[in-house]
């Protein structure tokens, strides 16, 4: 156990050190685009968006939950990137030739991605706060939002790591990620409520776990605990299923690469 903590600690610290050296590129690629979605997209559609359809005081207030979950989506899907480079330059093989538990590398990556994601969710909520979006459920609600984010993030990061280990080239990796990311966003309740979608899109959006995450986060920001609790109950079940499927699938890729 002590050895396991030593490995996981050292591997996690490696990601943290890398981040501190690559600070600029990381901040710009991960945090900024999402903040732009909130600021530009939110303000752009302020007048166009019908508040009776969105059921929110402003479009930014409606969009905040969507952007929070989009942040989780993008971070999760990008979570395997560093392992992809480790695989390609031999660092992964070097780690695998040491007497570490085969799960340490994976766990360290989960820990790191989840921490970063939580931080970025707070940044998004902070920016939304500046635009007058104050989560009605307070700090407790923010904590639950992060918890939902972590549950969704685990499955996404597992998919990303499995892809990183399975793809032949990193071109494949990045094109698959961008292929996944946009439909996930458009076919969800991030930008408009399901009720305002064309029927076929609403059906597809209901199959998207992201929709359920957003639908639980949104009342935590806008309405209150009463409306949020049933949604939270549902999302916990959906995420448990989603994570199980992702982890089960990813475990096969992990075993193949990590032995």
């Amino acid at each position, binding site marked *: 156990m002590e050895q396991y903590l030593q490995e996981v600690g050292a591997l996690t610290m490696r990601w943290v050190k890398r981040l501190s050296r690559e600070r600029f590129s990381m901040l710009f690629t991960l945090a900024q685009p999402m903040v732009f979605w909130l600021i530009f997209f939110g303000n752009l559609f302020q007048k166009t968006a019908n508040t009776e359809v969105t059921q929110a005081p402003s479009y930014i207030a409606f969009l905040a939950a969507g952007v929070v979950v989009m942040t989780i989506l993008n971070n999760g899907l990008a979570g395997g990137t560093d392992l992809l480079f480790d695989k390609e330059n*031999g660092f992964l093989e*070097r780690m*695998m030739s040491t007497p570490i538990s085969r799960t340490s590398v994976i766990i360290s990556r989960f820990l790191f991605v989840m921490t970063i994601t939580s931080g970025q969710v707070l940044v998004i909520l902070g920016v939304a706060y500046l635009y007058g979006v104050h989560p009605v459920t307070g700090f407790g609600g923010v904590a639950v939002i992060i918890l939902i984010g972590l549950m969704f993030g685990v499955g996404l990061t597992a998919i990303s790591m499995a892809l990183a280990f399975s793809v032949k080239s990193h071109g494949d990796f990045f094109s698959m990620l961008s292929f996944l990311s946009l439909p996930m966003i458009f076919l969800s309740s991030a930008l408009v409520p399901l009720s305002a979608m064309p029927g076929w899109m609403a059906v597809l959006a209901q199959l998207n776990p992201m929709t359920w995450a957003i639908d639980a986060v949104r009342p935590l920001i806008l309405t209150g605990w009463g409306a949020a609790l049933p949604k939270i109950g549902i999302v916990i079940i959906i995420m448990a299923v989603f994570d199980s499927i992702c982890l089960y699938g990813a475990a096969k890729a992990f075993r193949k690469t990590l032995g």
Partner: protein
Amino acid sequence: MGLTVGGPFAIEVEHLSKTYEGKVTAVEDVSFQVPTGEVFGLLGPNGAGKTTTLRVLITVLRPTGGSARVLGMDVVEQANEVRQAIGYVPQERAIDRFLTGREHLQLLASLYHIPKDKAPARIEAVLKLVNLEHKADEVARNYSGGMKRKLDIACGLIPDPRVLFMDEPTLGLDVESRLKIWEHIRQLKARGITVLLTTNYLDEADQLCDRITIIDGGRVKAIGSPNELKSGLGGDIVTLTLAAGDLDKVEALAQAVKGQAGVKAVSTKQNVLDIRVASPEAALPAILGAVTARGCRLEFVDYHRPRLDDVFLAHTGRRIKEE
């Protein structure tokens, strides 16, 4: 640690095979043994199966047939014990360019479960061994190719291994760095570490390795010390290249040379005669006499003791491509 030592051999490979996805056979029926304390080379061209063999030995690849033991421990059944006892220096510069040299070694020290209070001394020791102390706190991005290689080796030495595996240790390095790396490897041998390295450099195999295994097409072609392999070819080599216009005289000349004193074997390829001789003193004048007697015009004459590339050619039927 209670490690079991498996007799005089640090590494034993028996009938090892590796087939990928049931189709591509990378290694087939490879067997060799490495006595403790030797520098042992796997020599072969790219794609010969050297790296596959090595990856099985460092426990990151499961063989599909046969078995391998390191220090008496099975690389599949006792993988974790093997990992604990070996060091590995990969082929690629497996360096995280955002970390400093020291941070690499700290990470490796943790992965080998070296206690926090013992790690700094161990790190200093390996930095000193590869002469990297002065650059230890610089990020690896700023390292030269040779320095990255030194850091790679330092990483491999962190566990204080009894067996060190090195994949193409001097690939792509300039001459000066290569000589330094060779020097480091000789120092490791002097410390009693068994070193198994792969290489496609003939001079590296020749000058650095106590014994080599020639691998081509996934199979072992020859095993022995460089000198044994060379003398195994049976004699020194005289190569005659005739002028292009004398192509029709090659066969007749070959027949004439065959009968001369001290000549053991003759082979021809276009306008080139490859002659094996037991003693050059007797054979050379006789060979040249035969050339003169037939009025052949010589373009080029070469005489040399067998080199490792002759050994490679003799066992594989082709020359190794150096790049």
